[in-house]
């Protein structure tokens, strides 16, 4: 549970720094090796359920594959058209393959990093830690928490409004235009009740002495310890090592704005 127990803010900073570092790199090897490293951590150190992990990852896999394919199909004119690989009877320039791989793998790397964070962090703990370590204003932080609590309520309410309107003899929307119109009708009762709920919650919070000032104590305290810094240093040094490795085998390229 090492990853779960890390300070959420430091974990987030580590992820952000890794992403920033990855954006300046443009070769297929660095992200590929880094992805493997993240997956090992996610599945074996953090012990995230593999089914859950794959489920969350699958949309990104599809997106990354789409990116890969479209870059092959509509790639730029290569500067070196003689170096090609034959693939299903098509000659594809190696340069284009490299670009496509680099782009799709970096998408996967960003996704894997985000999932490593999301699947091992409690949202409440993250926000509490942001307040304590990163000076997030309590007004904003508790607002986000209260809003987060509303999401399931709003979902339930939407279901209710839908059936309430059906009872009025309004038929189920079939075309896209009808559907748009229908959602416009749902929005007013939904907003009316959301605003009322938000106001009530705000009043309840104030009458418990909440002022939004930073001058407050915390029941759940988050501190930064050596193990948190260790995680940050470890992740970044792995990434830097990989970059150096890619450099040495001659693959490394700076990112110059390819899409």
């Amino acid at each position, binding site marked *: 549970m090492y990853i779960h127990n890390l300070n959420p803010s430091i974990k987030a900073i580590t992820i952000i720094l890794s992403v920033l570092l990855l954006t300046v790199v443009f070769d297929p090897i660095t992200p590929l090796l880094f992805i493997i490293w993240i997956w090992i951590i996610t599945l074996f150190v953090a012990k995230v359920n593999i089914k859950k992990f794959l489920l969350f990852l699958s949309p990104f896999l599809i997106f990354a594959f789409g990116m890969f394919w479209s870059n092959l199909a509509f790639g730029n004119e290569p500067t070196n058209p003689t170096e090609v690989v034959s693939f299903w009877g098509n000659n594809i320039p190696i340069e284009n393959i490299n670009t496509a791989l680099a782009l799709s793998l970096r998408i996967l790397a960003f996704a894997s990093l985000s999932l490593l964070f999301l699947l091992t962090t409690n949202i409440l703990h993250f926000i509490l830690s942001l307040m304590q370590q990163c000076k997030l204003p309590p007004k904003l932080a508790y607002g986000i*928490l209260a809003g987060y609590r509303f999401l399931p309520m709003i979902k339930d309410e939407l279901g209710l409004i839908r059936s309430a309107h059906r009872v009025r003899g309004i038929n189920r929307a079939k075309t896209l235009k009808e559907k748009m119109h229908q959602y416009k009708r749902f929005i007013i009762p939904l907003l009316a009740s959301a605003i009322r709920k938000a106001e009530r919650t705000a009043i309840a919070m*104030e009458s418990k002495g909440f*002022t939004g000032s930073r001058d407050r104590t915390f029941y759940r305290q988050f501190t930064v310890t050596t193990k948190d810094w260790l995680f940050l240093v470890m992740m970044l040094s792995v990434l830097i090592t990989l970059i150096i490795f890619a450099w040495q085998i001659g693959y490394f390229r700076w990112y110059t704005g390819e899409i």
Partner: protein
Amino acid sequence: MIQTAVIKVDQLTLFFEDYPEKPVLDAINFESMAKENLLILGPSGCGKSTLTHCLNGLYPRELDGKLTGDVFINSKSIVEFAHGEVSHTVGVVFQDPETQFCMFTVEDEIAFGLENKGILPSEMGKMIDHVLELVNMTPFKNRSITTLSGGQKQKLALACILAMEPDILVLDEPTANLDPVATLEFIDTLDQLQQQKEFSFIIIEHQLDGWVSLIDRCMMLNNKGQLFYNGNLRDGINAHRHTLEQQGIWIPTPTRLALNIEHQSDYTFDHLPITVDELAAYPLPTPVSSTRITKSNPLALKAEKLTWTKKSTPIINEVDLSLYEGEFITILGANGSGKSSLSKLIAGIEKPTKGSTYLYEKKLNEWKERDLRTKIGYVFQNPEHQFITDSVYDEVSLSLRIRGLNEADIKERVSLILHQCQLTGFEESHPYTLSQGQKRRLSVATMIVDNQSLLILDEPTFGQDANSTKQLLSLLQERNETGTSIVMITHDMEIVHQYADRVIVMEDGKIVLDASPTALWEVPSEQLLNWQLELPVQVKLDQRKQKDVSYVYS
């Protein structure tokens, strides 16, 4: 020893910006002493919630309007308090259990108030355990708030406030959203707490039953925001009985029964009784209970082996049910027993996993949705959910337009329905701007305008004051007399007693009793408690009298 008031309200007058000509509160004066429990009575819309906001320091800081006069808390004017400091002395429990919390778990929520107060984290654990023990919720410490029942949520709200150790609690209709048994439990908890901890409370309620014994003093507000009585509850009811009835202020049910006796039989109580015991002490003849003629009407709807499972948990379990034309049925049962689900299944709003429902011998799913809706009307708990158009007139005429009636017919039909629902004159108003009672009647209007033969209502009297409840019920009774079957989910046993000719009691997704109300009253009290039902006051009274008689003769 001269006692100083914990709260002193001095000539408090308040206007909202949108209505500068009509004050919400008009020159209110009162004091609240330590160890004194105060009741504030008033019709809905009399400014009770506004008063709460004045007492907890929200106003004048957050007020869009004008406030004159002053509120003193422990002799210090409320404007001199630092932001958030009032909460150390005055704690508030609000009406809606869903919107009082901002954290995810029980312990975090209690800690939230302590954090605001700046309590050291090392001391919080002990304090949280202590208040949870006070409200009997220790096993729920780590539970997620969304998994709690309404009653548990209100007890949690109480615990959160108690943890901050205020001198006085303001309870703003804390039991209005709870079922009768959860209400009694909440009142009991509060009663026991007062024996262990020193605090007093101000309760703002319109459903009074159960609170009477805890109250030391009572204040009455009218719908102009003026205080017209301040003193003993009993004397107040005695002196202002007519005003109370006129304003639609909720009075204890035994008192209401006594007032009915006054109206019917030229008798005047010198002291109006406010509890069942007091009413039973009067030498009054037991009224002949009107046994309703059992109707042998044609079958309207028949449900066979209805089963509904949601995420592999059974909600409704093999329910058989027959409804006959012209019946007035109430569905009773604890929260979560499947009342709403069953009503939605028979209305064809939800589809059962197994089993089928027949309306006039034709399966529900064989009916065209549009035709079905002209037969069955369904009134949702929150009227706003059903509103679609921008004016009352359009709202009522909507389904007639869908059916393609001509404008003259529509006009005639709509004005008749609006008249029946006492909404004449509001044709052009936007549905959202109506009062709670009017919104409710409008939602009923839209569901009877097609002359639906079956009308299903999900807790229609919820959050309504005495007057609008009365208006709604007489409207329903009128429809019922012209042949509409009414199926109503309710917690209000007085309604069951007065209007229903059949009761259905649900427990764990099954119908456990389907009989006449009279048969329900004879069910042993342990069983009723199990179903979370309470006897209506009139029945309690009759049973008391019978006991007295048998005591005398034995």
